[in-house]
């Protein structure tokens, strides 16, 4: 299941809903991404006061659905949830929730990491950081591309 929204989410309620009534689930692994109060660019580390997330709505949906399908093909019987927020968010705000429910923990951990790694390089979202005086678009990290690439070899 995927959802793109401006409003916040309650991870506990979402996870409860994901596994509700499913006796074959043995564990859930979740990841929550938050807005930091310092810049993503490694050299500067400047304070940021807010971040605005822009996206390409139809393509975002298509790409996130594709990532879920790939995870299901790879790990079989799993339940997946991706919630991603857009719009203006302030430090400490939740940005993204990925949750994977599976019969055993190894699959849940691995599939959750897979979804996050691929989301980082394939899903069309862009972050713009606002500092005290200027704002700038966040640049993609080579390390994120490398992490997504590792899944191709497995």
């Amino acid at each position, binding site marked *: 299941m995927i959802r793109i929204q401006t409003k916040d989410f309650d991870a506990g309620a979402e996870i409860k809903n994901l596994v509700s009534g499913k006796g074959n689930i043995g564990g859930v692994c979740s990841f929550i991404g938050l807005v930091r109060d310092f810049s993503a660019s490694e050299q500067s580390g400047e304070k940021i006061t807010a971040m605005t997330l822009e996206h390409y709505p139809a*393509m975002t949906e*298509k790409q996130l659905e594709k990532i879920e399908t790939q995870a299901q093909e790879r790990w079989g019987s799993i339940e997946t949830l991706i919630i991603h927020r857009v719009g203006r968010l302030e430090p400490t705000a939740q940005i993204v929730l990925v949750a994977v429910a599976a019969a055993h923990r190894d699959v849940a951990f691995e599939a959750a990491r897979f979804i996050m790694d691929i989301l980082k390089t394939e*899903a069309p*979202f862009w972050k713009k950081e606002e500092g005290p005086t200027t704002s700038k*678009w966040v640049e*993609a990290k080579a390390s994120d591309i490398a992490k997504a690439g590792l899944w191709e070899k497995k």
Partner: protein
Amino acid sequence: MKILYFAWLKEKTSLAEEDLSLPCGVSTVAGLMEYLKNRGGGFADAFADSTLVRVAVNMEHVQTSHPLNNADEVAFFPPVTGG
């Protein structure tokens, strides 16, 4: 075809989207990028370094060698930074 611009490409071109007939002699994404760059102004700025620009055709990531036709939806954007 429909062309969409996102993030700093939208800011530099001052355009979110436009409808354009495939220009004469243009058959690939690379050709279209060259055509747009030659408009000058903000477009020249946005497409000045094509290695910074990513492309999707019909909502799938593609290389600049990808062929184009008039029914395509083409989107230009920087490398993605969600999550």
